């Protein structure tokens, strides 16, 4: 795709894209820190996770502001319109990912205060999967790679399976050792947080696909060939 005749328009779109990808990176890092805090009971890490959430909220507002300015000044159409609408919606989803990561961090602190505990391995598997989905979908967005967005979208099923397995595992541990019920309840909620992060990454993948191709990504249409027919 060629550049806009107005260079400042390209600069604003680049700025928007940078802000969204930075938000994605921050959410991924926040999730990583939240899981490390869970293992290490490190309250400083929890504080960092909570602080990141405030930063994500501010970045979401910044993206909204820039998008509003671009709507008013540029009257965007076609790919530009889809790009800006997708950016606004993506930042809302990424901000929610941050909320879930923050919840995990807060639970890490609550559990640490209650006493020693072991993190079920399936929670780590879920977290790794969710982090990979977040990372890959942001890469797909930056590289404008619709196929990579489809890959992320298709991966959600795997995370859902892990969530079911983790929930069963945690419930089983709870029945085996009823005295761990508090911890296990926290673990169940963390599993749910991770599953929701995966859902949000999946929704971001749909937006990335739409922004690139102009077509909805749903059960009936998983192809990702570009809709434009005569690009150079």
């Amino acid at each position, binding site marked *: *795709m*060629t*550049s*806009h*005749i*107005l260079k400042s*328009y390209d600069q604003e779109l680049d700025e928007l894209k940078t802000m969204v990808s930075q938000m994605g990176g921050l959410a991924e890092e926040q999730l990583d820190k939240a899981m490390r805090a869970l293992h290490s009971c490190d309250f400083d890490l929890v504080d960092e996770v909570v602080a990141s959430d405030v930063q994500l909220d501010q970045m979401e507002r910044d993206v909204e502001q820039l998008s509003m300015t671009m709507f008013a000044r540029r*009257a*965007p*159409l*076609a*790919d*530009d*319109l*889809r790009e800006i609408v997708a950016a606004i919606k993506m930042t809302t989803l990424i901000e929610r990912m941050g909320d879930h990561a923050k919840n995990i961090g807060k639970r890490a602190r609550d559990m640490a205060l209650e006493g020693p505990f072991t993190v079920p391995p399936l929670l780590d598997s879920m977290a790794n999967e969710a982090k990979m989905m977040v990372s890959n979908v942001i890469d797909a967005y930056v590289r404008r790679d619709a196929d990579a967005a489809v890959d992320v979208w298709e991966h959600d099923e795997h995370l859902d399976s892990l969530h079911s397995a983790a929930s069963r595992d945690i419930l089983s541990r709870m029945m085996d050792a009823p005295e761990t019920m508090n911890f296990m309840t926290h673990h169940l909620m963390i599993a749910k947080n991770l599953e929701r992060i995966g859902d949000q990454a999946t929704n971001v993948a749909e937006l990335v696909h739409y922004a690139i*191709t*102009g*077509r909805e990504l749903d059960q009936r249409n998983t192809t990702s060939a570009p*809709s*434009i*027919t*005569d*690009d*150079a």
Partner: protein
Amino acid sequence: MTMATVQTPPKISAQGVNVFYGDTHAVDNVSLDLYQDEVTALIGPSGCGKSTFLRCLNRMNDTIADCRVSGQILLDDEDIYASQIDVVQLRARVGMVFQKPNPFPKSIYDNVAYGPRIHGLADTREDLDEIVAVSLEKAGLWDEVKDRLDHLGTTLSGGQQQRLCIARAIAIDPEVILMDEPCSALDPIATAKVEALIEELKGGYAIILVTHSMQQAARISQKTAFFHLGQLIEFGDTTQIFTSPTSGRTRDYITGRLV
């Protein structure tokens, strides 16, 4: 139970239209169906052939000495370039509004009454008064000029003059209205009034609008055709064209990239 879809025939069907100005191939094999009750926007960079194509639809190009048109343009299935066609009658059925408001140097009343008079549409003065009043009402101008119908049309503001020209066009009860950048000389308020008028009129006519304003095309048309270098590159629903065009050239043009 399945519902049968009734396909309305096009009001105008252009089939393989080519236009040459001397050796210059201005419109290149364009086929396009235009429907009653719809506004179709023709967009594209200057010199892309959109205005030339528009002017073919009521044979305005006949007045240009070295202009040659081939292909077919059917109005209600009748070839408008057939030898038996009365061009004056054709232009009564297919009216035109130009870029620059061009009222006659006559009174507001006479500007609107001119067409009905020469086409014999009114038997009495009362009939003519009725046509003038209804046309000005349809053009959204009646309330602004009803007390000064004897004033010169040229004394009106630019936006009022353009609506007077639209009233003049609809006074002879056309079936199709061609508009060649009708708002390019108007301020945003006058533009909004003309666009509101086009929206109201679309129920009774096929309206074909040439515009350089992407926002105007997006606001008021149901279909959009993108022309480039004389060719029709893309034609489709306006929403689809402006959100997800299928041609890279359409995308580049409407988003302000070099085509």
